[in-house]
């Protein structure tokens, strides 16, 4: 079965090609069949491969499928090849699984809307690019997938391109991630120049033998890869694009901006763990970035009023957890949280999509309330997702994965009390902000009565994801991943007290949310919501003011430079040459008077001149 690995990315790609070629000719049902079916077949293939691969005999095995020689320049030969190990198998199952459910959901979500063909074409291309990203056995192919998902993210955020705001959001997402991608490209160039290969396995081996831990080169390369990861995964300081990316359709937010693409940075760091192990300062930076991001984004989520922006900040925060875990070497825990997060966050987004759709495109949680009676399906789904996100202990998938991260952050050699404290505080804030959303949207007084009905294609994915968000913690993902990722060295033992704190804080957060947002209903009374100074709350609402900061330090100066350079100082040579040509043309064309006698005179004068030169010289 594993020889069929190439089919996994090829099927969605074929779907994209078929949809792109059939644009405007395929009837709507056919578009749905092709769009959903290609990803469904890809999922089936991935499941079959998983059943074949994941046997106990294959522990730590890597299956490589070189497809063809891509390019060869000098000593550097780049293959177009796929590699399957425990990490990429986990990733393709998440991508095709969540991808299929979101595609199915989109059928109902986009019913009656224009652009269905375009939507599914982009979505299929996205799934194909994401699968190439996680299956690539070389960094160059990984980069192809990396840019492919970035392109699809741009296209899908700007899906409703007639609205200037969505186009602006799409452009912002593209430009901000590009900052990180530039770092990634430079990192790849640095690696290929110094090690002579881009094959991930060969590269890791060569780096381990040629470089010692802490050398300048591995530190620089790891830092550059980190820049790419930070941009793609919306971590500090490049997190500003993700909240705005919510301008895209909700299924896009669920698939690309929650479950898969934004976790590509986490995957990249986990995949290149051999390189990061040689760069201890960068490892520390990774952990600190994750910890700071998770706290800042969690407080940001607490102050948002747009339901999708709450979830976007939550995504940034949860990826912060994964990055923090990566930083202390808890790779298995990070990927475990990645998978559970993919389920429960996609579930939250899809449930929010039902609410938004049934309320007639209402995004503001202050305009919602008491919806649990009208939308029981969405309510149960959102509640399950929220419980899992809040890491409700024992009964949810998110509880298991977050608890594992916190334990390992405390215990790992690179971790420690400060990181653990950040994660624990973040867990409390997570429970607080997501149950704020639950109480504001589904409880309290009714403000808007939903209309219409929710089709079964939207409810079925919710049911599947809800089950996964509960029982997903039972999958032995960390043990499975131990085959391809190192297990962190434990320095400190985690006592029962820490377990109790990690278990108790989510419950405390839910209780506080209940007190503030449901029993006292400060939000409904029109006062500021959380018991914090108004100025700080405003800062949270603006995501700690990063947008204003970047406008001041980056956007304005660039705009100023563009205005100043409107005359194109750099192009002066080229424009000068054309200007000289034009002027010469004007000047010479003046001699073309059309008068015969002038021409005769010029002939005579010219002849006289030539003769004079010939005779006198």
């Amino acid at each position, binding site marked *: 079965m594993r020889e069929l690995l190439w089919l996994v990315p090829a099927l969605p790609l074929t779907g994209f090609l078929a949809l792109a070629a059939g644009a405007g000719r395929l009837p709507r049902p056919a578009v749905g069949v092709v769009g959903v079916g290609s990803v469904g077949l890809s999922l089936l293939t991935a499941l079959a491969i998983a059943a074949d691969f994941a046997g106990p005999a294959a522990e730590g095995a890597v299956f490589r499928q070189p497809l063809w020689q891509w390019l060869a320049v000098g000593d550097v030969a780049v293959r177009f090849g796929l590699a399957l190990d425990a990490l990429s198998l986990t990733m393709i199952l998440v991508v095709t699984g969540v991808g299929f459910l979101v595609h199915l959901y989109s059928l109902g979500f986009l019913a009656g809307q224009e652009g269905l063909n375009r939507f599914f074409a982009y979505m299929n291309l996205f799934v194909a690019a994401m699968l190439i990203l996680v299956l690539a056995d070389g960094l160059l192919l990984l980069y192809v997938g990396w840019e492919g998902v970035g392109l699809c993210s741009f296209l899908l955020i700007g899906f409703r391109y007639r609205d200037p705001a969505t186009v602006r959001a799409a452009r912002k997402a593209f430009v901000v991630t590009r900052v990180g991608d530039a770092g990634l490209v430079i990192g790849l160039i640095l690696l290929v120049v110094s090690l002579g290969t881009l094959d991930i396995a060969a590269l890791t081996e060569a780096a381990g033998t040629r470089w010692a831990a802490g050398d300048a080169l591995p530190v620089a390369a790891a830092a550059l890869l980190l820049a790419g990861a930070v941009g793609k995964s919306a971590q500090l300081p490049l997190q500003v694009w993700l909240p705005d990316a919510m301008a895209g359709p909700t299924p896009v937010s669920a698939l690309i901006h929650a479950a898969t693409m934004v976790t590509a940075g986490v995957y990249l760091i986990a995949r290149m763990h051999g390189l990061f192990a040689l760069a201890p300062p960068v490892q520390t930076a990774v952990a600190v970035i994750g910890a700071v991001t998770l706290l800042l984004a969690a407080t940001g989520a607490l102050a948002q009023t747009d339901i999708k922006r709450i979830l976007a900040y939550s995504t940034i925060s949860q990826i912060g957890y994964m990055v923090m875990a990566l930083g202390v070497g808890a790779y298995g825990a990070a990927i475990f949280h990645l998978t559970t997060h993919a389920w429960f966050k996609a579930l939250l987004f899809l449930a929010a999509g039902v609410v938004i759709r049934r309320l007639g495109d209402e995004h503001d949680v202050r305009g919602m309330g008491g919806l649990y009676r009208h939308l029981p399906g969405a309510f149960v789904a959102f509640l399950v997702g929220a419980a899992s996100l809040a890491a409700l202990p024992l009964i949810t998938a998110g509880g298991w994965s977050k608890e594992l991260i916190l334990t390992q952050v405390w215990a790992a050699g690179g971790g420690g009390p400060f990181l653990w404290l950040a994660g624990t505080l973040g867990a409390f804030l997570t429970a607080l902000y997501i149950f704020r959303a639950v109480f504001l949207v589904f409880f309290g007084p009714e403000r808007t009565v939903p209309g219409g009905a929710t089709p079964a294609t939207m409810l079925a994915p919710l049911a599947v994801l809800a089950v996964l968000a509960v029982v997903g913690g039972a999958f032995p993902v960390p043990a499975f991943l131990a085959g391809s990722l190192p297990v962190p060295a434990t320095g400190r033992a985690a006592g029962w007290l820490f377990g109790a704190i990690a278990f108790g804080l989510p419950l405390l957060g839910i209780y506080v949310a209940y007190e503030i947002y449901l029993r006292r209903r400060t939000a409904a009374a029109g006062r500021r919501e959380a018991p914090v100074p108004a100025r700080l709350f405003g800062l949270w609402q603006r995501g700690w003011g990063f947008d204003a900061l970047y406008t001041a330090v980056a956007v304005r100066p660039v705009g100023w430079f563009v205005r100043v350079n409107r005359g194109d100082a750099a192009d002066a040579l080229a424009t000068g040459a054309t200007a000289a040509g034009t002027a010469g043309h004007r000047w010479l064309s*003046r*001699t*073309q008077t*059309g*008068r*015969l*006698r002038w021409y*005769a005179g010029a002939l*005579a004068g010219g002849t006289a001149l030539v003769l004079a030169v010939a005779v006198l010289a």
Partner: protein
Amino acid sequence: MTPMPVMEGLLLAAALFVLGLLGVLVRRNILFMLMSLEIMLNAAGLAFVVAGARWGAPDGQAMFLIILAVAAAEVAVGLALALQLFRRTGTVDADAVAGLKG
């Protein structure tokens, strides 16, 4: 046969040539321009004949015959053009047709 006065002959040719050239440049009537051209051609022919007589070579007279043929051809084309000019524009003023102004 008395020797040919070369200097005088060439001076006469030059004078004729300049006269013809001035005629081409200052006359606007295309017929007079053609006539001036004839004078210039004949000036060149005269120079050839004088030079041929000076060196005792027949080439000068051969060149004059060629110039005669060229002049005849030029007059044929030139008069045809002048006729067309008059038919189309109703004038024989060469400056009146400056349609190829750049």
